[in-house]
């Protein structure tokens, strides 16, 4: 091969490499979309617990939850203090049912973004409606290894004050798009809480975090562990589950 031909081959190779990189390199927004998509299920049923530990001890709340599509979900609490309380959510409304008073309460608006039992999980999080980019702008920081997994490190900055944490730094798995680790900070950059995945499971070819821990940095020995004991995804569900009749049963 002549010297000129060699140069041409190298040039073509570099051009192909450059464009293939352009085609395959994911933007920070693409990573967030893939992360959201990974958490969307057509239907799901789960049982689990939220255990809060502080210096006074541990408090555990257990629940059953069904979800369907982007909006429909029903959560029933099974732990003693909240037993029988249910929350039904559809696109625009949240219905609460308190069995002690046989009371049905309908809420709209900001109630949908409230955390479930003071945890870091909102009602929106418990359904398929996840669009992180609606709430945050995202920037790519670097890459890192967490739990022996290669991760993208991203910083999310809140677009409004209606979110729990103004700044989030997250470590997103490059293969499975689950968030292995997170650091939640105030607008001034003060670290408030840390999130980490303790356990994952592969269900229907998807890697799903089934045990996560959120530590409160401002309070010593204060953390919340959410554990999913049973999870079935993309399963047939009774059409009557997401109805007022089911809620008031």
């Amino acid at each position, binding site marked *: 091969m002549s010297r000129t031909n060699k140069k041409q081959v190298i040039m073509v190779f570099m051009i192909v490499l450059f464009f293939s990189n352009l085609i395959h390199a994911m933007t920070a927004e693409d990573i967030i979309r893939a992360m959201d998509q990974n958490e969307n299920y057509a239907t799901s049923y789960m049982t689990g617990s939220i255990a809060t530990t502080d210096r*006074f001890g541990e408090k555990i709340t257990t629940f059953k939850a069904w979800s369907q599509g982007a909006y429909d979900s029903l959560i029933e609490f099974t732990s003693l203090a909240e037993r029988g309380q249910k929350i039904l959510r559809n696109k625009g409304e949240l219905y609460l049912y308190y069995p002690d008073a046989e009371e049905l309460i309908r809420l709209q608006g900001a*109630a949908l973004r409230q955390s479930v039992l003071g945890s870091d999980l909102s009602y929106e999080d418990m359904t398929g409606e996840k669009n992180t980019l609606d709430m945050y702008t995202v920037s790519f920081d670097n890459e890192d290894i967490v739990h022996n997994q290669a991760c993208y490190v991203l910083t999310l900055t809140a677009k409004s004050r209606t979110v729990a944490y103004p700044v989030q730094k997250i470590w997103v798995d490059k293969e499975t798009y689950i968030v292995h680790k997170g650091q*939640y900070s105030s607008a001034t950059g003060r670290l408030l809480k840390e999130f980490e995945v303790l356990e994952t499971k592969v269900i229907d070819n998807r890697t799903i975090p089934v045990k996560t821990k959120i530590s409160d940095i401002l309070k010593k020995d204060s953390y919340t562990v959410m554990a999913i004991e049973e999870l079935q995804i993309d399963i047939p569900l009774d059409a009557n589950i997401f109805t007022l009749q089911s809620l008031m049963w």
Partner: protein
Amino acid sequence: MQKKLLATLLLIIGFSVQIHPAESAVDMNMFLSMQPDASAPRTWLFVPSALITLNLTETVRENLRGEMSLRFNYPGSTPTITVNDLLDKVYVKARFPHFQFTLGKTRLSWGDGVLFNAADVLFPVRTVSIDALSFQQAKSNAWQASSLIPISSFSFIETAALFNQQAPLFPLEQTDFGLRFYSGEHSVKFETGYANRYTAQFRLHIPYIALQGNIGADWYLAASCELPESNAVLNHGKTSLQISGGLYWLLPVPYNGTLSIRIETMVRPWLSWKEQSTAQQYALLLYSEISYSPGNDFSIGLRSVVSPIDLSAMIALHGTWNVLQNFTLMAIGTTAIGEPHDLCSLGYPLMLTFGATWKY
């Protein structure tokens, strides 16, 4: 006889708890209230009180469920205690493909509102008191047969017959009837219904309507009036007209906290708009509540009921702390503004209540 009945009841419950330990729960609410003694300066009066509920719930095959709940209240409102007083709840519910029915002693909550709810036509609450014990005991249950017929996912019809608890044989002419239609299909919830209620003098026809929606805040509005069967008391229909409304904001605050604000009003336009020399129900009442919770364990709040016509108000500052699993400490301080004969008069300048609730 009464003692034997109670003993039998307790034996049955004790036996049931052994059979179904996972479905039983005891809810203990203990309070210690203190208030200054008006007749002796620098002296405080102490009142211990307790509300204990023993609850048994059973669900069979997802379509049949029952609940029995015993309530022990100290000090009781009457010197003697009856089985009916003790049985706070006892019912069986059955679910079929096109309807479900409930038979027994329980409650039905219609309409919206924490203190003022014109749509609560079967269980009307007339109290304006917001002290700790009144808030706990304001709502009662009744013997009933009710059914719920779904029309669509978010709408249904509910029918109910409530039996007079004072009459041993529940005569039909003393039975209350109710019917409501509920639709949450659209952005504004629409609820309307009718109750036919027995009173010692005459029967009442009580239609109502209740709406709920969101305009940034959640809003709710209801109206009802009591129309007597007898023409001789038509004036009652006019004076019983009541309109309640409210606004509710639930605001997320950093970091994972919640601020809730509620404002309610009750308007009875045909009642007095002028202050009277004796305490009575006026045409306008207001209720407000603001509560802040930094997480799931602790909350602090202020609630008040205001009678703008006689310029009186009752104000309560309260705090709760879920310190251990199923164990909550609470404190509430209640005071009143106004003259002794005013509607929101407490009869004492200040009451402090400390309490603990434990569920096991």
